[in-house]
């Protein structure tokens, strides 16, 4: 199918052949042109002119606690996505994961920089982070070490990324202006990561439905780490009950579409 619609000017993206679409969105070229749109001109993930808002000691402590968890989550995603490149089943997935590694490295860097703004150094991160999240990270890396592609993609790009996506979205609505801008850039990257995970696993499950039961076991094992972390983060951020439910719902919807009970 031609990219050019003769009846109206320009490209009609929805007429693309599925293979052409798949090739395009898994390319470094696509990644570069996408991130250029929302990251150029930013410094450490936000506009330089954005003014720092005054915070009480309590608000600052809460934000530091949350950012420490974000740093652990991003470190887990950085180490997992880089480890997954070696066991990815095809070139398109390897290239996509290489772009994800760059994204996760940037996320870790901007969150650490934000912690630095608040007077907290990198050495504090693990000490302040949620024990459940640290256990989740350890287990995720074990899945990569065991070369279990489906389980590791499920743990990282579906469970971890959908939780991060939902938490960042809700946090960005009420965050101070600098943190909100940092989060907005990260959320835009996360759309690609959750989409990759869901679509990759969806294709795997369509050709090997028996994998669903195994992933159900992985979910059972990892779910409580994720939900404990969510509860702790929601407490730090002061999410009302309905917002906490919304965050949980986004995660359950994603797992539900894949039919992983």
């Amino acid at each position, binding site marked *: 199918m031609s990219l050019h*619609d003769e*009846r*109206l*000017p*320009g*490209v*009609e*993206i*929805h007429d*693309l052949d*599925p293979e052409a*679409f*798949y090739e395009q*969105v*898994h390319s470094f070229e*696509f990644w570069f*042109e*996408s991130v250029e*749109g*929302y990251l150029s001109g930013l410094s450490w993930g936000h506009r330089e002119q954005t003014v720092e808002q005054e915070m009480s000691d309590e608000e600052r402590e809460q934000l530091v606690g949350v950012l420490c968890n974000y740093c652990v989550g991003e470190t887990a995603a950085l180490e997992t996505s880089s480890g997954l490149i070696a066991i990815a089943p095809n070139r398109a997935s390897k290239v996509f994961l290489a772009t994800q590694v760059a994204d996760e490295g940037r996320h870790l860097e901007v969150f650490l920089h934000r912690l630095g703004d608040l007077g907290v150094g990198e050495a504090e991160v693990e000490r302040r982070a949620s024990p459940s999240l640290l256990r989740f990270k350890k287990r995720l890396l074990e899945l990569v070490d065991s070369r279990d592609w489906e389980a590791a993609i499920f743990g990282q790009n579906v469970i971890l990324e959908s939780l991060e*996506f939902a938490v960042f979205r809700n946090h960005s609505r009420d965050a101070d202006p600098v943190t909100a801008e940092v989060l907005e850039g990260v959320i*835009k990257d996360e*759309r*690609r990561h*959750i*989409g*990759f995970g*869901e*679509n990759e696993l*969806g*294709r795997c*499950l*369509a050709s090997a439905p028996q994998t669903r039961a195994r992933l159900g076991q992985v979910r059972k094992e990892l779910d409580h780490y994720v939900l404990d972390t969510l509860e702790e983060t929601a407490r730090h951020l002061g999410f009302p009950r309905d917002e906490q439910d919304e965050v949980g719902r986004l995660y359950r*919807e*994603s797992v539900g*579409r894949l039919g992983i009970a």
Partner: protein
Amino acid sequence: MMADTPQPAPDGTDDGERQRFVLGDTGFDEVPKKYRRFYRKWEGPGDVLAPNEVLCPVCKVVIRSTRELRPGDRVYCMPCMSRLVVMRTDAGTLEARVAY
């Protein structure tokens, strides 16, 4: 955000009575420039979708087409790299389902 401009369907096309749209800039910046007009930010539950729009269930971005959408149409969500099929819900609204 610039509103889309409906256009009459050209004669002799198999789109029949489908309304056509010239897509305007929405300020969406998450995909390469030439594709940005096909997407816009979703403003939440009060956001009303036009006949050429559908919500991506994966990443919650509004997907737009130059044609009025109908059940069975294929659309792509470039921000999350998903292929979707348009369906009609029991409530009569259009929604997109992921096609793996």
